[in-house]
């Protein structure tokens, strides 16, 4: 029976349509809140409960969460920017000018994309070091650490490929320098840069390849890895926090899962 303090929101939550969409029922019980997480494809990457100490700022500085935030911003702004961008020479540069001068808020979105990208790179590094110094890489979280490293590389690649797209002097020479580094690989270095640029120097081919990498391949890879990364946080026993009294959480803790203890 409806309570006195019912709001429209709560009434709405009890409609059949709502129930058909959100598998967790309405309500404020611990159970409902647990379900809200557990029954949601996105949120179920999190565990339903967290230790309070994990959420203190001291523990993680929220670096992972912030990185995720920048990633969201980048996806949104990136998609919008794509609508005014032609990956061709020299149109790409003209498009930058249009974004700057004639597209409403075009410059703002470009700025936001740019600064968020730099921030993300920085945050990823910071996140890695923080995790290391917290010792959170230790088993059972080894593999998640490895995924983290891969994500770091992916982020760098994303930023690097995006760097060429404006097709200005900055971009062109940064990429030229970079691709020359790649071509220094002992045996198949030239092949690498040849494949990377789709040619022997940075030109229209390279632009198109970097565009595809930047807008399709790498973001998908990143999204996938991020999902795994966060899912593993949960599966590896939640965020790691240094133990106040040693021994409570030992490396052996996770064997419970391996032994087949099923959390429903």
């Amino acid at each position, binding site marked *: 029976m409806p309570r006195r303090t019912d709001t429209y929101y709560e009434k709405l939550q009890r409609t059949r349509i709502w129930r058909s969409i959100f598998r967790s029922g309405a309500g404020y019980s611990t159970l409902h809140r647990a379900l809200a997480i557990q029954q949601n494809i996105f949120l179920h990457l999190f565990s339903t409960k967290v230790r309070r100490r994990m959420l203190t700022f001291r523990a993680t500085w929220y670096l992972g969460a912030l990185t995720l*935030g920048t990633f969201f911003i980048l996806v949104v702004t990136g998609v919008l920017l794509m609508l005014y961008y032609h990956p061709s020479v020299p149109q790409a540069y003209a498009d930058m000018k249009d974004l*700057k001068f004639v597209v409403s808020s075009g410059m703002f979105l470009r700025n936001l994309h740019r600064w968020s990208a730099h921030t993300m790179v920085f945050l990823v*590094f910071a996140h890695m070091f923080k995790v290391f110094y917290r010792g959170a890489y230790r088993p059972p979280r080894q593999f998640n650490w490895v995924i983290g*490293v891969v994500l770091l590389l992916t982020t760098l690649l994303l930023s690097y490929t995006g760097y060429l797209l404006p097709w*200005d*002097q900055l971009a062109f020479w940064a990429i030229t320098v970079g691709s020359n*580094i790649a071509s220094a690989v002992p045996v198949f270095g030239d092949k690498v840069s040849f494949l990377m640029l789709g040619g022997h120097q940075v030109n229209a081919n390279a632009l198109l390849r970097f565009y595809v990498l930047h807008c399709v391949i790498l973001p998908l890879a990143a999204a996938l890895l991020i999902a795994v990364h966060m899912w593993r946080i949960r599966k590896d026993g939640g965020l790691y926090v240094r133990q106040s009294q040693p021994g409570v959480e030992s490396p052996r803790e996770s064997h419970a899962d391996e032994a*087949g203890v099923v959390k*429903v």
Partner: protein
Amino acid sequence: MTEPKDFAAGVGSDIRKSQKRVLFVTRRTSVQVKVSDEEQIQTFPEGLLRIALAIELLATALIFASLVFNAPIEGIADPTNTPNPAKAPWYFLGLQEMLHYFPPVVAGILIPALLVVALVVIPYFNVNIEADGLFLKNRRRRLNIFYIAALGLSIFLLFLEVYVALVPTLIVVAFMRIAASSSPASTQRYRRYLASKSVSWWIMTWFLFELIVLTVVGTFFRGPGWSWALPWNG
């Protein structure tokens, strides 16, 4: 006498009525009971709210930055006209700085590759997992190894005149020496701190230190022809 079952099954139940746990206990392992008296909170809304809060703060900051500072846009790409200096994105400037000293194969490939490998393997070495203080166990031997490594590295850098990388190295080495000479039972806090640090900690710290120094130098203190320059008169 029936064969004992491989496992005993609990009773299933409807989750919506009551929360129960089904526990499968195999013969191979014993049941573990985890003692965790920690205070826990619900991820929803409590935890998510904090995350949302953090992200909002960041977003606000970024939006302000984007309103104030414009992203750089140079002249159109011109293969015939190389700007001086031609710099990579800032996060590669450490790399470029090293390229200034070492052949591309070393600076561009070897070092990054080694870095990545090192990072990946960190959690797979017990020494890193146990993470005991570097000089707590058989001190003498480790100290010798440390001396050799430190000396070798320093000489190598000195020989190639990579002072930018040498200075941080020496500083870190100095601290390690202090750590070696201090016991975890020391009265001074920083000595206790240093003494407790593991080898991986030291390496990572050295790497972090180098990374920061090289990147800062490459970003702010390098002018035309990759010569020294000051940011304010550039």
